[in-house]
Structure formats: structure tokens, C-alpha cells
């Protein structure tokens, strides 16, 4: 039996209210490519962050043994010292520096603090050759494509004499050709230089192609580890492991009362705001009936948030085209204000940075989107404001000392209820909910589902964006599936299952 390079024993990591990792044991043999697969939020990235010291020793329980030695990493630098390097989904390169500078950032070829540039360039060229980069080392990182930037990251890891290389979704942002190159490079590094790899990926077919072992994580626990040539290496087998959880009744009862099509989007196209040659939303059309809850499923980066935000008064994107029809009338939405006026609401994915004003109290947050409703001649009636926000606080059961409490002091669930109150107060007809229950405990989730159901009962159109498939399956009447900026499938509640949705996404990726 080969030597075990990494042994993670009984790792448990909790965030406030959530157990992200529950007694995880992971063994990696020297010289293998080990894949971690699982749904969004299953705990893959958390596990790798524990390993690389992003979450320092003491914030989790359990132990890490690397090359036979017990390790207590206080930060990423500590883990790099023993030869563990992690490449995150979002690249950590400085775009205004050259390739050579980036490769040796924080690891400069210097004596007494003075950098030897000739040596730096020479070494950079050697490392670049290893990863297949032929650029001049003095090229700025911003001038090379994302696929090559990924290679620079790997060269950077190699410069630190990496023994264990961790890649978090390395191909998520790459096109097919770049992905293919990257995978070949990983195989080469593995075979020729003996570097052990841990790769996290949503693209199962890639994993099947390169991995020696595949470990499936679900709900913070390891489900199984499959070995090449021992176990069956097929998509069906892996997907079953990923989603094989029983649905318990975590969702309130509801009898849908669905009417005619009330909101319709046709041929919606959006380009990236920073790069207007990159299409982010690719001719998307969908509709929502009154009283209907429509889910949009997809992996992270599929373009769901971008779709919702671009519809919400062009809050995202450039060169937007397409038609939006509500109640038979075509809408012209030039700004967020227009969108609110026409009865649209968008509950953001990230309530802390984009949903709430944390230093303001509950009252001022609730009325912010519709100050016109509590003011006369642009003068706000504090009394009226107090009454309406107090009423909403009671109706949505926001637990706080009162409407004068700052929203930054509330729990996640209660913060989300404030955001919902704000948009209920705006009296919309169409509500986009982007990850409405992210980071919220189970009890509050149930309450938020109840609120959503009530809104649907009033004949509003609800569009639910969620990365949690059970949630989508639990409360939606109809599901659109998005991938890479396109709608790649549509299912009724009856025909939808986690396996079907996953399959639909994976098949469309090819």
C-alpha cells in the first residue's frame, strides 16, 4: 500500500447555527489525484480551507497529519511552509503586476530585501515552461486570458515546492479548450513531478477523467470514497452519492392557486459589465403565472443572479436587450426606480453587503425602497413610518428589541425578514428571491418559506433562485434550469428530482 501523505481525522467545523463539517475523515495517498465532489454548500471548500489554514487551528476540532507529522496551521503561510498550496476559485493574482512578479509574490528572490530581477525572470521562465506558458515573464497578468492566469497560479504554487496542490473549481471559469489543457497539465505534474492533487469540481466528467479516487461529501459528512478500477466510476453512481438524501418535511404545506401568465421575459441578452464581448445571459426566455413559485436551479456562476439583477432595472450588465411583459404590457425598465415603480422587487443574494444598511435601524431599512409611501411633499412622516414598520415587524415576527434596533445586531434569519419586509412594503407583483435562506437556521427557513407561500397566495409571481436543490424541489411549482447563461431545461414539480436536475446541468455543460 502506498504511503499516506495526508490524514485528516475527525474534522468538525461549525459556523454560527450551522455544522459545516461533521466528523470528517479524509486520507490522501502520496502521488494520487483525489477529487472531492458534492453539492453547493456540502462542505468541500470548508474542508480545504481547514486544511490550508484559512480557518486557523483552534477554530475547528480534529487533527491534521501531513507526511506523518501533526500540523497546527495558524494561517496559509504555515501550510505553505510544509508544502500545501491552495488555488481558490477566485484567483489571487495582482492584475497590475507582471507574471514573474506574481509568481514570486511574498516569496521574492531577494537578498537583504533587494530583489534580483535577472534571477527572478530566469526562475519564472523555468516554472512557466513547466506549466506550458510561453509568454514573456514581464507580461502583465491583466493582459493574459483567464486560462493562462490559472496556469500562473499553478506556477506560483510550484515555486513554493508544493507537495500537495489543492484546486478549488479550477475549470469553472474556463472554456473547453483551456479546461482540457489544465487537466492535461495536472496529469503531467502528477505523473512526472509526483505532485499530489486534491481537486474540487462540479464537472463530474472531468473528475472521472483524471481522478484516482473520488470522495463524495454531503451535508458536511463524507458519504463514500470511490477508487478507480475498484468501484464503478460513472456519473449516475456519483450523482446518487451526492444527492441521496431523503426529503423530510422541512417545507410548509401549500395548495397552489395558479392563474394566467402574468410576467414574461423574452430573448433576454446581457453582456458582462467589465468585458462587453462576454455574453453572460444568452437569449433567456421564461414566464411566471400569478400565484406561482418558479425556481431557477443551477450551479454557482450559472448566471441566475445576473439574470435577476439585469431584469431589476439594469442593476447588472451592459448591452441589455430583450422584452419584459407584465400583465400584458411591455415594461421599460431603465433604472431600479423604474423597476420598483412597475412592481418588481429583488431580494439580494447577500443581505449584508447589498440588502441592508446595517448601521441603520429596522424602521429606516423597511421604508427605504418606498419612502414616497410614508412622506408628503418629500417630508417624511416619522409617525406613519413607525406605524407601518411596527406592523410589518409583528406580521413577519421579526425578533428584535423594537423597530429602533440596528439591523446589524440581528440574527441572519431576522435580517432576512427585514429585507423581506422592505420588499413587501414596496407592494411588488413580481418578486425575485436570490438565495433567500442562505446561512439561516432551519427554524427561520421554515418561517421564510411560509412568508413566500403567503405572497404567492396573494397572486404575486415569485421567482426563487437557490443553490439548494431540496429547497427548490420543496417549494417551487415549476423549475427552470440554468447553466452557463442559458436556460437548459424546464420541469414541473412532478417530474423534477435532484438527479434529473443535476443530470440536466451536467449534460448541458459538455
Amino acid at each position, binding site marked *: 500500500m502506498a504511503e499516506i501523505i495526508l490524514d485528516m481525522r475527525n474534522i468538525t467545523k461549525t459556523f454560527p447555527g450551522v455544522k459545516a463539517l461533521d466528523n470528517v475523515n479524509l486520507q490522501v495517498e502520496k502521488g494520487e489525484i483525489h477529487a472531492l465532489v458534492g453539492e453547493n454548500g456540502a462542505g468541500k471548500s470548508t474542508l480545504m480551507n481547514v486544511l490550508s489554514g484559512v480557518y486557523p487551528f483552534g477554530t475547528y476540532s480534529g487533527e491534521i497529519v501531513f507526511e506523518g507529522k501533526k500540523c497546527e496551521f495558524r494561517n496559509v503561510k504555515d501550510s505553505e511552509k510544509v508544502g500545501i498550496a491552495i488555488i481558490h476559485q477566485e484567483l489571487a493574482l495582482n492584475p497590475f503586476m507582471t507574471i514573474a512578479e506574481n509568481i514570486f509574490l511574498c516569496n521574492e528572490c531577494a537578498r537583504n530585501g533587494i530583489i534580483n530581477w535577472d534571477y527572478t525572470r530566469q526562475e519564472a521562465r523555468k516554472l512557466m515552461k513547466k506549466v506550458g506558458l510561453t509568454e514573456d515573464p514581464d507580461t502583465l497578468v491583466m493582459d493574459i486570458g483567464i486560462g493562462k492566469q490559472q496556469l500562473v497560479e499553478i506556477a506560483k504554487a510550484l515555486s513554493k515546492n508544493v507537495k500537495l496542490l489543492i484546486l478549488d473549481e479550477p475549470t469553472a471559469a474556463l472554456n473547453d479548450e483551456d479546461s482540457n489543457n489544465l487537466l492535461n497539465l495536472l496529469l503531467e505534474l502528477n505523473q512526472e513531478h509526483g505532485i499530489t492533487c486534491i481537486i474540487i469540481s462540479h464537472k463530474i466528467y472531468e473528475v472521472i477523467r483524471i481522478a484516482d479516487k473520488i470522495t463524495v461529501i454531503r451535508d458536511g459528512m463524507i458519504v463514500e470514497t470511490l477508487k478507480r478500477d475498484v468501484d464503478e466510476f460513472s456519473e449516475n453512481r456519483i450523482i446518487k452519492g451526492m444527492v441521496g438524501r431523503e426529503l423530510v418535511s422541512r417545507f410548509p404545506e401549500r395548495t397552489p392557486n395558479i392563474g394566467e401568465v402574468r410576467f414574461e421575459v423574452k430573448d433576454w441578452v446581457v453582456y458582462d459589465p467589465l468585458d462587453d464581448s462576454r455574453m453572460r445571459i444568452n437569449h433567456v426566455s421564461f414566464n411566471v403565472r400569478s400565484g406561482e413559485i418558479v425556481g431557477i436551479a443551477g450551479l454557482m456562476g450559472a448566471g441566475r443572479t445576473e439574470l435577476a439583477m439585469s431584469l*431589476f*432595472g439594469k*442593476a447588472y450588465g451592459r448591452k441589455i436587450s430583450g422584452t419584459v411583459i407584465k400583465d400584458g404590457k411591455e415594461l421599460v425598465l431603465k*433604472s*431600479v*426606480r423604474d*423597476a*420598483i415603480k412597475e412592481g418588481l422587487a*429583488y431580494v*439580494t443574494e447577500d443581505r449584508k*453587503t*447589498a*440588502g*441592508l*444598511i*446595517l*448601521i*441603520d*435601524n429596522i424602521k*429606516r431599512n423597511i421604508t*427605504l*425602497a418606498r*419612502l*414616497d409611501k410614508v*412622506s408628503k411633499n*418629500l*417630508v*417624511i412622516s*416619522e*409617525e406613519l413610518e*413607525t*406605524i407601518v414598520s411596527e406592523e410589518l415587524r409583528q406580521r413577519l415576527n421579526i425578533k428584535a*428589541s*423594537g423597530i*429602533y*434596533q440596528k439591523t*446589524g*445586531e440581528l440574527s441572519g434569519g431576522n435580517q432576512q425578514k427585514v429585507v423581506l419586509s*422592505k420588499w413587501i412594503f414596496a407592494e411588488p407583483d413580481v418578486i425575485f428571491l436570490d438565495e433567500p435562506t442562505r446561512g439561516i437556521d432551519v427554524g427561520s427557513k421554515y418561517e421564510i418559506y411560509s412568508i413566500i407561500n403567503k405572497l404567492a397566495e396573494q397572486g404575486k409571481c415569485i421567482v426563487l433562485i437557490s443553490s439548494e436543490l431540496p429547497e427548490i424541489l420543496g417549494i417551487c411549482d415549476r423549475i427552470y434550469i440554468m447553466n452557463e447563461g442559458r436556460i437548459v431545461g424546464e420541469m414541473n414539480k412532478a417530474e423534477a428530482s435532484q438527479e434529473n436536475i443535476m443530470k440536466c446541468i451536467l449534460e448541458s455543460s459538455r
Partner: protein
Amino acid sequence: MEKHRDVFRYNIRQYGMLFALIAIVLIFQILTGGILLRPINVSRLILQNSYILILAVGMMLCILTGGHIDLSVGSVVAMVGASSALFSVRLGLPASLSIFLGLLVGLLAGMWQGFWIAFVKIPPFIVTLAGMLIFNGVNNIILNGQTVLLPKLYITIASDSIPDFFSVNGLHLTTVIIGVVCSVAYLIAQLIIRFSKIRNGYEVNSKQWFMTKTALVVLIINLFAYWLARANGLPYIVILLVVIIAVYSFITNKTVAGRHIYALGGNAKAAELSGINTRKVMFWVYANMGFLAALAGIVFAGRLNSATPTAGQGFELDTIAACFIGGASATGGVGTIIGAIIGGFIMGIMNNGMSIMGISTFWQSIIKGLVTILAVAFDVISKSKAKARY
């Protein structure tokens, strides 16, 4: 009761500043041997600081939008002074018209900066740094390095008191009467508001609290009026200041525009996704700053009796310090007009008190710098403590 505690906690920083002001007054009252609070010195203190207070009101709005500052206010003050000389002396226009045109010049300067900040998205620090250079250049071109005497109206606005109709033993009786009238008006207004709230079933503060507060305000108004009456009477500039403070406090507290400014500073992204036109808000905040800087420029020119090329130098720094001492947050979204005024007075009293004591301007500068650091440190520390509790 719960609610009162919340409201109190929300305002604790404000009260803290008020206590700091009272403490500084008492300290300098003792250190100057009672000169600080003599009627004539109180009057002088207000006249000397009026233009900084006007600037602080506008600067507070800039800081509220996200901790941004306006470095150009000193140059705008100088440029408007120079324009006044141009309009009233060189072109011979009537003084009132040239004041109006001077305000227009300031407003245009503010709109110019607002355009680059809001629509081209250049950081305010850079735009106003450039503005500082540009407006200072304009000022020097107009004045050509000379000092120009201004018409009487400018001096009246900046330094004179209202005429007295019935003086008694050197006491400016008109001022006392105005004080009484104002306090009665205040009392009636408060009662009307309170009863209409009760009639409509809204919550009101307890009776004792209401009575104590109203009585205190009435007392302060009358004492202040009496004090000024013992000096030269009520200066016009005090009327102007009261109007400015009242109008801008109303805007920030009670209007949609004010709420938009706070929301932008509290979380720009959330504000934008709530339908607030953040560009428009930024534009008007800086345009307004230009307008108030012009007003300060006219007052300052009046105080000096003339337009001089070096007017306004360093005003931006005193103004910004006043706002931060007065409780503005360096990241925006927190601060009040009254806070800016209190901060301005703290700076002014330190200047005045230390000058009376004969402390050199070099030491004055060091002490003012230390006070600014301490005031903000107090804010930062109390905030991080508050965070630790939750």
C-alpha cells in the same frame, strides 16, 4: 421604556459631544479667568467662527455620503470673495446683486465638481484637490494679487448687529424681546405638535421629559439673547446661522432627500438596489457644498472688509476636523448637522481660548490636532466595543 433606552443609545454619541463641548467651555472659562464667557467675547466667538460653521454644515453632508471630503472649500471661499470684488467694485453692480452672483459662482463650482464625482466617478478627493488648485488660480487671476475693499453690505452681513429701537442702560432691548418672542413661539410649536400627535393616537414622550426639555430650551434661548444684548445685540449672522442649521437639520432628519444621503453613506449598494439614484444624490451634495462655501466666502470677505488673495487658506482642514470631532463617521452614514456645529464650536472655543491665554499658534495647532485624533479614537473604540457586545 425599552424604546427610550434604544433612542438614547442611538443618540449617546451626540450627547457625548455636547458634554465634551460643555467641558471645554468650563475648562477655558477657568483657564482664561472668566474672559471666555463674557458677553463681548461670546459675540466675537460667533462672528469669528460663522464661516467655519457654515462650511461644516455642507461638509457634513459630503462626509455622510461615504466619508468623502471636499478639499476645495477654502479655494471656493477665496474665489467667491474675489468675484464679489469683481462684480461690486470693478463692474460697479449693486451689492445685493453681486452677492447673488457670488452665490451663483459657488453653486456652479459645486456643480462642476459634482459632475466629475457623480457622473464620471472620479474619487471626490481627487476632484476637489483639482478644484482647490483651479479655484485658487481663478481667485488670483481676478484679484491679480491685490486686496480690494468691498461695499458696506458685505460688512453688515458678517459683523453688524440688528438695530436697537429701545436701548436701556446699554442693554440691547430689541435682542431680549426677540429672545422672548422666539421662546414663546418655540413653546407654542412644541405644544401644537404634541397635542396633534396625541389626538392622532401617536406615541409621545412622557410629560416630565417633555416639560424638562422644553423648559431647558426656553431658558437657553433667553439666556443667549440676554447675553448678546449685553454685548452689541443680535448679529445678523446669528439669524443666518439659525436659519441654515434649522433648514439643513430639517432636510437631513425629515425629508426623503436626507434619508437618501444617509442610505448612500450607510451602504451604497443597498441604496442603489432600493431605487435610490445615487449619482443624483452625490451631484447635489457637492453642488450644495459649493453654494454653502460661497455663502461662507461672502461672510468671510465681509469680516475682512475686503477680498484678499490669501482668503480661505486652511478652512477645509478646520471644517473637516469640526465634522469628525462632531461625530461624523469616517466611513459615512453617521453624523448630524448639530454635531457638525458642536464640532465647529469646540474648534472655535479652543482657538479663541488659547489665543486669550497667549498660547502660540504653533502649540494651538498641535493641540487641535491631538483633540481631533482623540475625538475620532473615542468614536472608533466605542464602536468596536459596541460591536463586541453583539
